[in-house]
């Protein structure tokens, strides 16, 4: 009994403590996130979890993505582009300080961009910077970037999380102690559990509205549901259990936001593997697939059908879903015309996300209707990257391409679906150097149509962003134009 008593007292004390915390909880917020960042350097890893925590909150680039996907000024407040489109002159914001008190000036910008494109760079998106010829720090507040060729995407590229501005003074420890210029400062990381950010009192721009933000890492969908229901969390962007959303919707304590991401979810096809090198066979697969069944079955109804590799919310999107209507009869005819002996055996690799695992099983059932036997192989990400993505050892795979405006991957003949169309490659080259917005739009429309006509892949749906939040939370991004949980404008309702 003696040991039980202090225990009980301690528990009571702990309850009292949580109670007081709950009353004072008006200026901080706890965010749930499924994946934990491996480290905290957005410029040396592809992990979206790093950007989700740090993008815009802690680190800023010269330009930045807005909630609608538009590219606006970041640390660079203004810029001029020379007539030949080769020289960009950026005018930096005044009085910007890194969180360690050092000044952010043009030298830091030069350092960051040069580091990203250096020979020994480990930047996951190094290609974004490969068009840079030179970076000059003209004066402390001005940076001049010269490109090798005109690039209509350059300002867009600079908005990526991989292009944020870092300082040479703090680069050594960036992986554990990130020092940026953002409205929040990194405070603490309890590995495996949470990352804490606090408000930057000396922020150069519009200050953050919250005093502190905690990101908690909960990988299991059921645990995420429980943590939200127990009100341990205030917001869960990219909520992993769509089947539970109606429950939150019906509960007055919570609200559900349904937005869009840049993730085109596709049934990718190995275009070089016979008989998939025959466009008729790929078209047959596209017609065998029933998007609505997949969206209902794997996504509980959340997701916009797509007919090409482009985000439906983008102004240049063309709706081409008609070209690959669900039509098993037509699929069978096409397979017959192509002279494929049925049943056709194909290996279908499925990476871990539920859209792939659940969606893949539905697709396999649909393909069976037209005589295609998809042998499902569930793989981890590391296996998928090695065997499917780099080794081309697959017939079909389900995957969401989450990078914004990434139709140019179809211009890479060695990309894992191995689509090799010289005309398309030329078109992408042209759009890269075109800066007239109308002409660019026209080219993007053409590109979407070309890949749909070639039935490179079967296009399924745009991955939704499902956010669950407490009713009083305001200022959240409804869509995800890039992987980010931008907390700078988030606040509690009065």
């Amino acid at each position, binding site marked *: 009994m003696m040991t039980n008593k202090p225990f009980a007292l301690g*528990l009571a004390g702990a309850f009292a403590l949580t109670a007081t915390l709950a009353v004072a909880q008006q200026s901080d917020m706890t965010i749930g996130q499924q994946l934990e960042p491996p480290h905290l350097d957005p410029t040396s890893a592809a992990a979206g979890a790093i950007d989700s925590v740090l993008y815009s909150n802690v680190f800023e680039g010269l330009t930045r993505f807005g909630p609608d996907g538009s590219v606006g000024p970041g640390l660079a407040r203004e810029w001029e582009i020379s007539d030949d489109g080769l020289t960009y002159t950026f005018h930096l914001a005044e009085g910007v300080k890194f969180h360690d008190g050092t000044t952010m000036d043009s030298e830091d910008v030069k350092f960051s961009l040069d580091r990203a494109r250096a*020979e020994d760079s480990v930047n*996951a998106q190094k290609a974004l910077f490969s068009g840079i010829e030179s970076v000059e720090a003209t004066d402390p507040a001005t940076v001049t970037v010269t490109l090798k060729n005109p690039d209509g995407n350059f300002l867009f590229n600079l908005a990526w999380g991989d292009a944020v501005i870092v300082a040479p003074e703090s680069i050594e420890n960036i992986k554990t102690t990130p020092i940026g210029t953002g409205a929040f400062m990194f405070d603490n990381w309890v*590995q495996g*559990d949470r990352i804490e950010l606090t408000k930057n009192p000396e922020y150069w721009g519009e200050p953050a509205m919250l005093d502190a933000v905690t990101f908690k890492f909960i990988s299991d969908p059921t645990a995420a549901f*429980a943590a939200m229901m127990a*009100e341990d969390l205030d917001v869960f962007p990219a909520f992993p259990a769509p089947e539970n959303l109606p429950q939150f919707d019906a509960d007055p304590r919570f609200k559900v936001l349904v937005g869009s991401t840049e993730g085109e979810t596709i049934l990718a096809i190995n275009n070089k593997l016979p008989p998939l090198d025959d466009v008729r066979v790929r078209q047959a697969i596209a017609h065998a697939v029933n998007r609505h069944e997949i969206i209902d079955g794997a996504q509980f109804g959340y997701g916009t059908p797509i007919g090409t590799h482009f985000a439906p919310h983008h102004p240049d999107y063309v709706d081409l879903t008609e070209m690959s209507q669900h039509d098993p009869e037509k699929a069978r005819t096409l397979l017959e015309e192509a002279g494929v002996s049925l049943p056709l055996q194909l290996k279908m690799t499925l990476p871990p996300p539920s859209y792939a695992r659940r969606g893949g099983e539905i697709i396999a059932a649909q393909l069976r209707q037209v005589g295609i036997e998809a042998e499902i192989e569930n793989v981890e990400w*590391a296996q998928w990257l090695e065997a499917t993505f780099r080794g081309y050892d697959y017939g079909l795979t389900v995957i969401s391409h989450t*990078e914004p405006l990434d139709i140019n991957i179809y211009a890479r003949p060695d990309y894992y679906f191995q689509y090799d169309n010289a005309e398309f490659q030329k078109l992408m080259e042209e759009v890269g150097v075109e800066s007239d917005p109308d002409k660019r739009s026209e080219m993007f429309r053409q590109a979407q149509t070309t890949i749909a006509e070639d039935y490179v892949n079967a296009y399924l749906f745009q991955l939704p962003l499902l956010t669950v939040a407490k009713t009083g939370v305001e200022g959240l991004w409804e869509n995800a134009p890039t992987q980010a949980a931008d907390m700078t404008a988030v606040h509690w309702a009065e």
Partner: protein
Amino acid sequence: MLRYTLTRLLSLAISLAVASVVIFLAIEILPGDPAAFMLGVNAQEDTLAALRDQLGLNGTLWERYVSWVGGMLTGDFGTSYTYRTPVAGMIADRLWISLPLAIYALLLSTLIAFPAGIWAASRRGSAADVGVMGTTQLGVAIPNFWFAMLLVVVFAINLQWFSAGGFPGWDEGFWLSIKSLTLPAIALALPQASILARVMRSALLDTLSEDFVRTARAKGLSRRQALWRHALRNALIPVLTIIGLQFSFLLAGGIIIENVFYLPGLGRLIFQAISARDMIVVESVVMLLVFAVILVNFLVEIAYALVDPRLRHRA
């Protein structure tokens, strides 16, 4: 006793050496490149090569094995590929959650199982015995993750007495941390307590029917006195064996419970490290767990000798 201890120590060392080879080979043949995992789908070939070089992934299998084992012997577990922090520190952080959780669960399980088992054995065939046997049957049958979710629904979602998971860290206060480990410890302890109570009961019933207990009764001890003074100590050997096995299980096998309660323990660390192909972390944690299991077995064998003097002299 000394010779007994020394032979046990020698077999401990051999087990460890064999385990290190098996673990290293099993993990190194897994397909998947940690550099490709970290840099994702848009990485260029030269970037991947630069990262592999940074991580030291270019040596031969033999070179990497020697440097891994050599490092461990000198207390250096290497640097995690993905987290880029020393593995030893990561393991220590996680151990500060998994170890207290395992001890907490084991304490709960023993505190429930001993009285329940003894009570049932001393009243064999009574309503109490049937009740304990029935309850423990249920406890063994219920999967612990399901029981964990039930606890979450009742105590976190409906009553909101506890948070649904997570761990604040020992710096935030001892009782707050204990509180956050309470539901997981109960979920882990219930099946263990059920098994242990059943073992306790049957071991005690076995010894109660032995000659020396009858002799003790014949010399005038009451049934209860005979049980406490003579039978209990002799029934402890199987119970100790089970406790040893359970502790290893609780330490290494908490992975599911750690997922349900999103606790940053060793199980979660292994899980994350395997999917990221952070081989050096996986190898070191598995090695540590093997060491822990072997060490616990060793301690249990020493404990046998303490409760049973015959073992001391035999070896």
